[in-house]
C-alpha cells in the first residue's frame, strides 16, 4: 500500500450545515476570519476607551453623555472618576495587547495564510485550532464581563503589579471580582495561545508541500513560525503566573504578598511572598510579547513590499536570521522593564546590553527594507502605503528604545509619557500598520471581494499623519517629566503642558474617527466590492495560486509542488515580471 503523505492524513471532511461551516468550523480559514473579527471588536472597544481617557484628561469636568448608563459608580452623571479612569486604562491595555496585537497579526492572518503558503490543506490539529479560538473568545467574554459587575473592571493596569492586584478589594475598587475576572481571562487567553502556537509549529514543520523547503517559505510564514516559538515559551510562563495570582487572591496563598502589609487599615493575613516575583514572571512573558506583536507585522510588511516593489528584498535570508536573533534575544531582556523596580542594580547592567544589542538585527532589517527600495518600481497601493508607513513608524518607535534601554536615562524617563510614546509607536502603531497592510493586501483573497482603494488611501493618510500627531508629542511630555497613569494633571508642574495634551486629544479623536472609514470599507466591500481575481497583485506565493476565496481544502484535489523560493519578482516569466512559486518554468533574468 502506498504511504499517505502527512498532508493527506490530516484532511478533514468538507463541512456540512451552517454551524459547522461558519461557527464551529475546523477550517483554518474560517478560524482566521473569526480571530480577525474578534480583534476588530476588541480594537473598536479599546479605541473607544482611549477616546474616553483622552477626553477626560483634558476636560476632566465635562460629562460624556450616556457613560453613566454603562457605569453609574464609575461615571456619575457621565463624569469619569479617577478610579474609573484607571479601569479604562487597564481594560484598554489588556484588550489592545492581548486581543488585538496578539490576535490580529499572528492568530488571524497566521491561521488564514500559514497553511496555504506552505501548501497544506489545513492546520496539523484542526480541532485544537477550533478550541484555541473558542478559548480565546471565552477569555474575551470573561474580560468584558468586568464592565458589568458592581465591582467594576480592575484598576491595576494591564501589568497587574502585585501586591495591588493580589490583595483583593481592600486595595481599592475593581480589585475584588474585577481583578479575578482579569486573571481568569488572561489565564484562558494563555491556554488558547499555547494551543495555537503548538499548532502553528507542527503545521510548519510537518505539512509543507513537496519542494517547500524551510528557506523557500515566505517571510511571513517564517515570522509566524518564529512568533509561535516565542509564544509557546512566553504564554507558558504567564499562565502559571496568573494561576498563582488567582491562588493568592482566592485561596489565601502568598506567592506575591509579603508580611506586614497594612491596607485600608487592615493587617493583611499574608507572609513570605515577593512582589518582584510577579514582575519577573510578568515581564518574562511581557517583553517577548512585544515581539509576538511586531514580528508577524514585519513578515507581512516584507511580503507586501516585495509584491509592491516588483523585486525581492536584498536578502530574505538576512531578514529571517534577523528575526531569529530578535526572537532569541527577546528572552534576555525582560529586566529592562525593572531598572528602578528595586531589583539588584547590577542586574540592570546585565539586562541593558542585550537590550541595546537587539538594535543591531532591528537596524539590519530596516536597512534591508530601505536598501531594497533602491531600483524598485513601486506600485503605490493602499497595502504598499501601509507597508512603507510601517517602516517609518518602526524607525520612529525604535529610536526612542535607545533611551529606555539605558538604565541611567531610564531613572529619569521611567513611568513618563516617553515610555507611553515609545511602546505605542513601535508595538502598537507599527504592528497595526502591518495588520492594515495585510488587510488591504489579502482582503480579496479572504472574502472574494476587493477593498476600495481610494477609501484605503484616504484611510492611510488620516492614520499616518494622525498617529504621528498623537504619539510624537508623548515623547516631548515625557522629556519634561509628565507622569503616565495619572487621571488628571492638577498640579502646577504639569498644568502648563495642557495645550499639548489638548492637541493630542483632538488628534486622537480625529484619527479614531478616520478608522470608521476603514470599518465602512470592510463591511461595504465585503458585500458590494469588486469581485477579487485569483491574483490581483501579481504575487508569487501559493495563496495566489488558488481561487479567491480558496475552497474548503485550499487546493482542491491538487497537491501543490513548489519549484522556487517565494519571491521570483523582477524576472521574465510567461505572465509578466514574476514567476509563481508552483510554476515549473525556468526563471530567466532577475
Amino acid at each position, binding site marked *: 500500500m502506498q504511504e499517505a503523505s502527512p498532508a493527506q492524513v490530516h484532511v478533514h471532511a468538507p463541512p456540512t450545515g451552517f454551524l459547522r461551516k461558519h461557527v464551529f468550523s475546523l477550517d483554518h480559514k474560517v478560524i482566521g476570519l473569526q480571530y480577525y473579527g474578534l480583534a476588530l471588536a476588541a480594537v473598536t472597544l479599546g479605541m473607544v476607551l482611549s477616546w474616553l481617557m483622552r477626553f477626560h484628561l483634558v476636560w476632566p469636568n465635562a460629562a460624556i453623555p450616556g457613560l453613566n448608563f454603562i457605569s453609574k459608580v464609575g461615571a456619575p452623571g457621565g463624569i469619569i472618576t479617577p478610579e474609573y479612569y*484607571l479601569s479604562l486604562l487597564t481594560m484598554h491595555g489588556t484588550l489592545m495587547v492581548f486581543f488585538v496585537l496578539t490576535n490580529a497579526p499572528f492568530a488571524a492572518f497566521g491561521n488564514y495564510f500559514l497553511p496555504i503558503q506552505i501548501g497544506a490543506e489545513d492546520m496539523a490539529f484542526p480541532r485544537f485550532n477550533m478550541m484555541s479560538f473558542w478559548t480565546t473568545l471565552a477569555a474575551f467574554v470573561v474580560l468584558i464581563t468586568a464592565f458589568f459587575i458592581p465591582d467594576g473592571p480592575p484598576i491595576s493596569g494591564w501589568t497587574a503589579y502585585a501586591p495591588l492586584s493580589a*490583595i483583593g478589594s481592600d486595595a481599592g475598587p475593581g480589585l475584588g471580582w474585577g481583578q479575578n475576572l482579569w486573571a481568569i481571562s488572561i489565564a484562558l487567553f494563555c491556554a488558547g495561545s499555547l494551543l495555537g502556537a503548538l499548532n502553528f509549529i507542527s503545521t510548519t514543520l510537518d505539512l509543507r508541500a513537496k519542494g517547500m523547503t524551510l528557506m523557500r517559505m515566505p517571510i511571513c510564514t517564517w515570522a509566524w513560525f518564529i512568533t509561535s516559538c516565542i509564544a509557546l515559551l512566553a504564554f507558558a510562563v504567564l499562565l502559571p503566573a496568573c494561576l498563582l495570582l488567582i491562588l493568592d487572591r482566592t485561596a489565601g496563598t502568598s506567592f506575591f504578598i509579603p508580611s506586614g502589609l*497594612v491596607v485600608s*487599615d487592615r493587617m493583611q493575613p499574608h507572609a513570605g511572598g515577593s512582589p518582584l516575583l510577579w514582575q519577573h514572571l510578568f515581564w518574562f512573558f511581557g517583553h517577548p510579547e512585544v515581539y509576538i506583536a511586531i514580528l508577524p507585522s514585519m513578515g507581512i510588511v516584507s511580503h507586501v513590499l516585495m509584491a509592491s516593489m516588483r523585486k525581492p528584498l536584498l536578502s530574505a535570508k538576512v531578514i529571517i536570521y534577523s528575526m531569529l536573533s530578535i526572537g532569541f534575544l527577546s528572552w534576555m531582556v525582560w529586566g529592562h522593564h525593572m531598572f528602578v523596580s*528595586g531589583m539588584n542594580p547590577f542586574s540592570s*547592567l546585565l539586562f541593558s546590553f542585550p537590550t541595546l544589542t537587539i538594535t543591531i538585527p532591528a537596524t539590519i532589517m530596516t536597512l534591508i527594507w530601505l536598501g531594497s527600495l533602491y*531600483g*524598485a*518600481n513601486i506600485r503605490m497601493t493602499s497595502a504598499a502605503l501601509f507597508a512603507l508607513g510601517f517602516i517609518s513608524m518602526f524607525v520612529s518607535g525604535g529610536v526612542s528604545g535607545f*533611551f529606555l534601554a539605558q538604565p541611567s536615562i531610564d531613572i529619569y524617563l521611567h513611568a513618563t509619557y516617553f515610555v507611553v510614546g515609545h511602546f505605542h509607536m513601535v508595538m502598537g502603531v507599527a504592528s497595526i500598520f502591518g495588520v492594515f497592510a495585510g488587510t488591504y493586501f489579502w482582503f480579496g483573497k479572504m472574502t472574494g471581494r476587493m477593498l476600495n482603494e481610494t477609501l484605503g488611501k484616504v484611510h492611510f493618510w488620516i492614520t499616518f499623519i494622525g498617529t504621528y500627531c498623537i504619539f510624537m508629542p508623548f515623547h516631548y511630555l515625557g522629556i519634561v517629566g509628565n507622569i503616565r497613569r495619572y487621571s488628571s494633571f492638577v498640579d502646577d508642574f504639569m498644568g502648563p503642558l495642557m495645550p499639548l495634551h489638548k492637541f493630542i486629544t483632538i488628534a486622537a479623536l480625529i484619527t479614531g474617527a478616520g478608522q470608521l472609514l476603514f470599518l465602512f470599507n470592510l463591511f461595504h466591500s465585503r458585500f458590494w466590492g469588486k469581485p477579487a481575481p485569483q491574483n490581483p497583485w501579481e504575487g508569487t506565493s501559493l495563496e495566489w495560486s488558488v481561487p479567491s476565496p480558496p475552497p474548503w481544502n485550499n487546493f482542491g484535489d491538487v497537491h501543490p509542488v513548489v519549484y522556487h523560493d517565494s519571491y521570483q519578482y523582477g524576472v521574465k516569466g510567461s505572465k509578466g515580471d514574476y514567476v509563481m512559486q508552483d510554476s515549473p518554468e525556468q526563471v530567466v533574468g532577475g
Partner: protein
Amino acid sequence: MGKFFAVILVIIAVLSAYPIIAHKYVQPEDISTHGHAIDEQLSDTMAESGFAFLGAQFLLAFFVWRFTARKEGTKVSHLPGGAKLMVVAAFILVGTEVLALGVFGQKAWASVYFTAPKPDDLQVQVQAGQFAFYFRYPGPDGKFAPLHPDKIDEGNSNFFGLDPANDVEARDDVVAAELAVPVNREVHLMMHAKDVGHSFYVRELRLQQDFVPGLDLSLHFTATKPGKYEILCTQLCGLGHYNMKAYLDVMTQEDFEKWMKEKISEQ
C-alpha cells in the same frame, strides 16, 4: 503618490524633530550632584537617535520619491553592495553606538547605585502608603525606633507604627509629611512601603526608585539648590495614585536646623 508620500514624510520628520532641536521641551533644571551625568547621557543619546531618525526617514522619503510608478516595463535594479553592505553598515553604525552608550552610560548609573552613602549623611526613613509619603528623622538620639505595623493608626497620626510607650528611641523620632533636607549635604533615604508598590520620583533630582512591599531599599543623593520640588508617586498604586505627592524642601543648613528644632518641639 510616491512624491506626495515623500514630501509628507519629510514634513513629519522635520516637525517631529523641531521641538527637540529648538529645546521647546526640556527636563527641569537639575539640582543634584549626579544629575548632570544623566542629562549628558540623555543629550548624547538624543543626538545619535535624532541622526538615525532623520537619516532613515529622509532615505525612505528619497527612495519612495525616486522609485515609485516608473514607466511600465522599467527593469528593476539592485543596490550596489547588496545585503552585505547593509549588514556591515548596521554593525558599524549601531554596534559602535551600542558600545559607546552602553559603556559610558554605566557611569551615570554607577554614580547613583554603586557608591556607598557617606558615613556623615543625613538618614531619613521614607514610608509610602496609599496615598501619601511620610518621612521620619531619628531625632536628637540619632536612632530610629523599630516599627510595628500592627500599631499603625492614621487617625492618631501614628503613620509608621511607632510604640513610644515601650520604645524609648521612638519618643524623639520626628515624623513629617515633607522631606526637608539641607543643601549640599548627602541624604540617605531608607525606603519601605506600607501596603502596595509605590515609587519615589523627583524630576529635578533625576531620581526614581520604586518602593517594594517587603523590601527595605536605600537611595542617596545630594541636593545642590534650595527650593521646593515635587515628590511624585510613579508606580500605579490605586485610585488616588494621581494625587499622591509630597514636597522635597531643600534648605540652607541654618534653616534646616531651625525646622528640625520646631519639629522636635512639636513632638
